[in-house]
C-alpha cells in the first residue's frame, strides 16, 4: 500500500500542476478574446474608419476550441486528482457505484480504442465493499479492460452495482460476450493478485463479489 500512496502523491502533484497549466492557458486565451472584443468595439466606434480585424472570426473559433479543451482537461484533472487521493481513502470501505463512475471517466481512452460505451447503472442501495478504493478500482479495471477487448465494436458495456444480504457486487455486462469468453475472463481474474473480491460467471457477463463493509465477523 505504501507504493500506492507514493504513486498517489506523485499523481496528485502532477494533476495539481496541470490545473495551473490549464488555468494559465485559459486566462491567456481569454485575454486574446478580450482584445478581439476591444478591437470590435473600436471598429464600431470609428464608424468604419478603422476596419474590423480580418481574422476576427477565425481567432474566435480558435479561442473557443482552446477553451473546450481546457474544460476537457479540467475534467480529466479532477478525475486524476480523485484517483490520486484514492490510496488515502476507503479505509472504512469503498462505494462501488462511485468507484464505477470514477473508473468509467478515467477509461475514456479504452472505450474509444475499442469503440464501445461504458454505462454505470444506479445502485439499488448503497453498496459499500470491505476493501480500499484502490483494491476495488484494480479489480474492476482488470475486468473492464478484458471485457472491452472481448466486446470491441459491439456497443455498450454496463456496470451494475448491487447487493445481497451478505455481500456487494459489481456486474459487468455486455450483450456481445459469449459464455466461453466469460469463463476465460473469470479464470484470468481469479489468477490475478487481487484478494479483495471473487470473480464469477453470470448471464452476459462477470460478477465481482466483495465482502460488505460494516458487517461484523
Amino acid at each position, binding site marked *: 500500500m505504501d507504493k500506492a500512496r507514493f504513486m498517489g502523491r506523485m499523481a496528485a502533484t502532477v494533476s*495539481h*500542476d*496541470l*490545473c*495551473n497549466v*490549464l*488555468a*494559465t*492557458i*485559459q*486566462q*491567456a486565451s*481569454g*485575454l486574446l478574446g*478580450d482584445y478581439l472584443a*476591444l478591437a470590435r468595439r473600436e471598429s464600431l466606434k470609428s464608424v468604419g474608419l478603422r476596419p474590423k480585424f480580418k481574422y476576427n472570426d477565425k481567432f474566435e473559433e480558435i479561442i473557443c476550441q482552446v477553451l473546450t479543451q*481546457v474544460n476537457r482537461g*479540467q475534467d480529466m484533472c479532477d478525475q486524476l*486528482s480523485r484517483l490520486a*487521493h484514492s490510496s488515502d481513502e476507503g479505509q472504512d470501505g469503498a462505494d462501488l457505484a462511485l468507484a464505477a463512475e470514477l473508473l468509467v471517466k478515467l477509461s475514456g481512452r479504452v472505450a474509444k480504442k475499442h469503440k464501445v460505451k461504458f454505462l454505470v447503472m444506479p445502485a439499488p442501495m448503497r453498496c459499500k465493499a470491505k476493501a480500499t478504493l484502490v483494491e476495488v478500482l484494480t479489480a474492476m479495471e482488470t475486468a473492464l479492460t478484458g471485457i472491452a477487448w472481448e466486446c470491441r465494436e459491439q456497443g455498450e458495456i454496463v456496470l451494475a452495482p448491487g447487493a445481497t444480504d451478505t455481500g456487494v457486487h459489481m456486474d459487468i455486462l455486455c450483450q456481445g460476450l459469449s459464455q466461453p469468453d466469460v469463463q476465460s475472463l473469470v479464470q484470468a481474474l481469479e489468477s490475478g493478485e487481487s484478494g479483495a473480491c471473487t470473480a464469477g460467471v453470470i448471464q452476459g457477463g462477470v460478477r465481482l463479489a466483495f465482502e460488505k463493509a460494516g458487517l461484523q465477523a
Partner: protein
Amino acid sequence: MNKIKLLLVDDEENFVNTLAERMKMRDVPSKVVYSGEAALEVVKTQEPDVMVLDLRMPGIDGMEVLRKVRATNPKVQIIILTGHGTDLDEDEARKLGAFHYHKKPIDIDELLGTVKKAYRERVEDAMVAATFAQAGDFDGAQDILNEDK
C-alpha cells in the same frame, strides 16, 4: 467598482499577471504579488478590500496567509483560488473564514462576480458598523467589523 482594492496572490506569474490584466479591462485594477510573505507585507501597509489567494506557494503557503490575515485584518475578504485543492483544504479554508473557495481554472466573470460580492459584503458590514458607531455603540460597531464570516 473602480474603488475595490484588490490584491492577487499567486506564485504562477504568467497566470496572475494575465488575470490582473483581464480584471483591469473590466474596470477592477489590482495589485499583484507572487508570495505569501509579500502578501502579508502589503496587508500591513495597504490593506486590501478583497484578496484572491493561491494555496500552494513556496515559503508561507496560502493557508497560513489566510490564518494570519484573518487574525490581524479580519475585514479583508479572502477568496481562495487554487489548483491544488482537496475537499479537506476547502473545509479548512472555510473554517478559517475564507469568503469563497474556487478551483483553477475558473472563468474570469465568475471570479469577478465573487470579488464584487465579497466587496459588497465588506461595504455593507462597514455601513452597519458606522450606523452603530453613530448611535454611540462603539463595541457593537467593533464586533461587526471583527465578525468572522
